[in-house]
């Protein structure tokens, strides 16, 4: 699970959005997959990911034991070790990169590691094609997003959509994305603080904090 296909935005807006994920296939290569998934995440962690997730939680996760003082001193750093150590079932694990070079270097090392798991990249069509060519990989299959069919006009403006659809399972609500946009515009939160808050709601760890920060900074001075 990651659900990263239908992120809203132009090809240009995916310039800092590369998700690489490993997935075992039920009944085909899921035996002994947990250690391979951990190896995959350890490789990813070397290439400065923007986020990582393990099917249970991401590197920015909620905390059930906050102290009231957290309002002034909340930890905003990603915890990659926790994500890696907590892989306990043969599901999808993922890492998000905000740099094409890092994503390509990571993919090259994953190929060398020859884990036998299915490895996918979710980004622009061209971005993934170039990454494959860079690593000497012939793409096996490709799934194109034809976007949203919103005949009944349910969807919000493009800024809210870009922020909210980075959690493909819809755990970042439109209202919450709009609230964080407003808080940034009103100077009540910095883009960094808003991004960390948004990312905590994506349990797969595929929310891209770097892209979200860029979008929020743009939104301060440009309306949708």
């Amino acid at each position, binding site marked *: *699970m990651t659900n*990263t*296909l*239908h*992120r*809203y935005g132009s090809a240009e807006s*995916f310039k800092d959005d590369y998700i690489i*994920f490993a*997935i075992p*296939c*039920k009944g*085909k*290569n899921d035996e002994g997959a947990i250690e391979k998934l951990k190896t995959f995440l350890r490789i990813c962690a070397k290439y400065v990911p923007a986020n990582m997730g393990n099917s249970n939680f991401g590197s920015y996760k*909620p905390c*059930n*034991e*906050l*102290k*009231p003082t*957290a309002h002034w001193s909340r930890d905003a750093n990603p915890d990659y070790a926790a994500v890696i150590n907590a892989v306990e079932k043969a*599901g*999808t694990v993922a890492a998000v990169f905000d740099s094409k070079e890092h994503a390509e270097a990571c993919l090259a090392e994953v190929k060398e590691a020859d884990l*036998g798991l*299915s490895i*996918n990249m*979710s*980004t*622009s*069509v061209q971005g993934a094609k170039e990454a*494959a060519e860079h690593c000497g*990989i*012939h*793409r*096996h*299959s*490709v*799934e*194109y*997003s*034809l976007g*949203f*069919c919103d005949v*009944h006009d*349910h*969807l919000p403006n493009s800024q809210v*959509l870009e922020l909210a*659809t980075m959690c*493909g*399972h*819809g*755990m970042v*609500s*439109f*209202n*919450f994305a709009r609230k*964080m946009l407003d808080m940034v515009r009103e100077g*009540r939160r910095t883009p960094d603080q808003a991004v960390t*808050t948004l990312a905590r*709601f994506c349990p*797969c760890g595929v929310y891209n904090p770097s892209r979200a920060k860029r979008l929020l900074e743009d939104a301060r001075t440009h309306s949708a």
Partner: protein
Amino acid sequence: MLIDPNRCVACSNCVAVCPMGAIYVDTKINRATINRDECVECGTCSRMSSEHLNPTMVRTVRKLAKIFRFRFEPEPDVCPTTAFVVDELEWPRIARRVFSDPLVEHVSTGIHGRGTEEVKTNDVAHRVDVGEVGYVIEFGRPGVGVRFHQIQSMTMALAELRVKFEAKNPITHLMLDQSTGALKEDLLNEKILSAIVEIKTTVEMVPAVLDTVTRVAKQIDTVIAIGVSTRCDQNGEDPMLAPLLDDLGYTFVRAKTNMGLGRITNIQAKESVSDQHAASVR
């Protein structure tokens, strides 16, 4: 999902957090309240960070702040008093949680999230072969939700085209009859956050399928996201589907790309492949 009225302090943080907009503050009782018919049991509210504060103390502080018109600025992702209670659900309501909470596994496929591997494991599973086109038609996402009777409108229209529904898909498992696309009746009014209908056809069928999806989408009051997939050739190119989509006027900038690095490693699955290979040689 339930909200414990003894713990809720009506801070309203959860109102914005709910993906379905199903939570509101009932001013008659001054507590956050869930519209049970709109709630899809996705669990987002219950995953908010928490401080376990004493509700009486928080209410007193909030009343004082209100009197003096102080701006109360809590962390927006925190339920200060841990007011959410995840309740036990029974059929058919439990389908809401299974289809909406990405941390819950679909029993029918053993997969979390939307419950399907799509072409993410196509290098191992060979769901979509050369000359075939796979479709993932997702309902309710982003942020709108969908009821099963709306999904059924689409599955029945697709069944008329005699498409092949993917066997390892949770919606297919809920079908009474794949030849009609009818779903289990007691589910039809349940609302979920999203679900994927997964089919495959020959490449010749692509225009008819996409036309049907577009036509039925106009009759369903939700949002639909469409993904189409194919297997690349031996050089990693797609000479078939991308040009066709171009000709049909579709734009597509984003994709999920299977790099083809997977292989069968389970012992039983390997033996099965060897047996099939031996049989084909004989």
